[in-house]
């Protein structure tokens, strides 16, 4: 897999965002900002976090809000790819509907709705 490590990284980060929202019963946006606020300023960690949120936050918000799990989010954002002839790699149990249908629907969600300009709260 050409992008194995970025896929693991994406699924790990999106899982933490999703679980932070669950634990604190907050929105996905609030959860992403909470995660970035926890990171130290050293090594540009906090800056990088806000940069990533600015870039991918809107799509992550749309997808997680539609109950897509981290596998679906990361395949939709193309951090994970199923190369031709390769098995589908996923960490969480697969959704009930077919993967192809799930992924197609997720791509529609991201494509169709107007691109949210990410406006960081406060």
């Amino acid at each position, binding site marked *: *897999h050409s992008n*194995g*490590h970025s*896929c*693991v990284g994406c*699924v*790990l980060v999106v*899982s*933490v965002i999703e*679980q*932070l929202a*669950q*634990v604190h019963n907050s929105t996905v946006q609030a959860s992403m900002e909470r*995660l970035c*606020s*926890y*990171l*130290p300023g*050293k*090594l*540009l*960690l906090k800056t990088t976090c806000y940069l990533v949120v600015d870039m991918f936050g809107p799509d992550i918000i749309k997808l997680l809000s539609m109950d897509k799990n981290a596998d679906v989010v990361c395949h939709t954002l193309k951090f*994970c790819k199923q190369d031709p002839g390769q*098995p*589908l*790699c*996923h*960490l*969480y*149990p697969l959704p009930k509907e077919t993967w192809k249908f799930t992924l197609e629907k997720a791509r529609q969600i991201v494509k169709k709705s107007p691109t949210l300009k990410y406006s960081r709260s406060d």
Partner: protein
Amino acid sequence: SNICSLPFLAKICEMIKSAIKNSVPFKDVDSDKYSVFPTLRGYHWRGRDCNDSNGMAYPGRRPDNWDIHQDSNCNGIWGVDPKDGIPYEKKFCEGSQPRGIILLGDSAGAHFHISPEWITASQMSLKSFVNLPTAITDELNWPQLSGITGFLNSTSGITEDSIYLRLRKRNRCNHRDYQNISKNGASSQNLEKFIESLSRNQLLDHPAIVIYAMIGNDVCNGKSDSVPKMTTPEKLYSKVMQTLKYLNSHLPNGSHVILYGLPDGTFLWDNLHNKYHPLGQLNKDVTYAHFYSFLNCLQVSPCQGWMSSNETLRTLTSQRAEQLSNTLKKIATRKKFTNFNLFYMDFDFQGIIKEWQKRGGQPWQLIEPVDGFHPNEVASLLLADVFWKKVQLQWPQVLGKENPFNSQIEKVFGDQGGH
């Protein structure tokens, strides 16, 4: 995306990359391979330099003129006793046979550790990521807490000390004489790429105890066709002999080399597969079996052979590991070298499992929770304890004698400048 492409960062990026690639300290003004900076291969990895503007002052060297005027070997002992005019280094260390500890290892020896607090949402807070910058600049390793060269107090509450701290307790003249020459992904086949970062002057320095502990990557890889990628006994033999010849031309006479065997890693699947991974604990949905399968599918697993639901593959991996251990044993019994004695020791994971269970622990508590692969801090220190006791029993000459002046050293020099 490539932050190093920014002109004002290009130079420092280059220096950091070089330090990591060559496993030598990033900040080393006098280029003696010892540093006053902790991370980026600094004193977390090898004894702290006590004078970074003098390339002839570094841990492990024989004292310069008995260190009357300066601490040339950074053990914190120098100067002259005003009562009798005898240099302290001569009085307290002469004849005590000081020695250093050097590890040639992989991510296990460097103590690879991803903190579960970084991915556990239910416990996450501002404090969770405080140590992340340090970990990143140490390549996610914590050698300062490792079982061989650790010098910090254990964070896991276990009382056992690292090999280095035991050598220091045995002879305070060994203070700061440790080197963790380890790398993530290291094996017998790529050690030659970074063995030059080992620092020992055959004429000027004290002898050393070198532990060769490549415990996994010769049978571990992320490839789906894992077995063909494993090191063969013949290849291992050839590279280890090359390594030993290199050591014989660099180690001071009177050194010792101990070859550490490989473990039986079937322990991992047997004890973890049906346990929840930290990512799966909130919703009870991800076990280590799922986690292993995900990594294997992406071909980024640290060890496809043992982190697999395929029992045949796990057995084959352990068989190869045993063959390689037997090869190391054969080398140790047959080969002689002028500057060091050579020994072999089994990697007795089953032994430390029994010890841990005696203390009321569970086997799975000996493995790093986030990667589900590496021995954790408790395991490393229990292994150090078993190692020390075996060496003390079988080859006591390796550890040197107890220094009768330890208490006086402590009285005069306290913590000898610490670490």
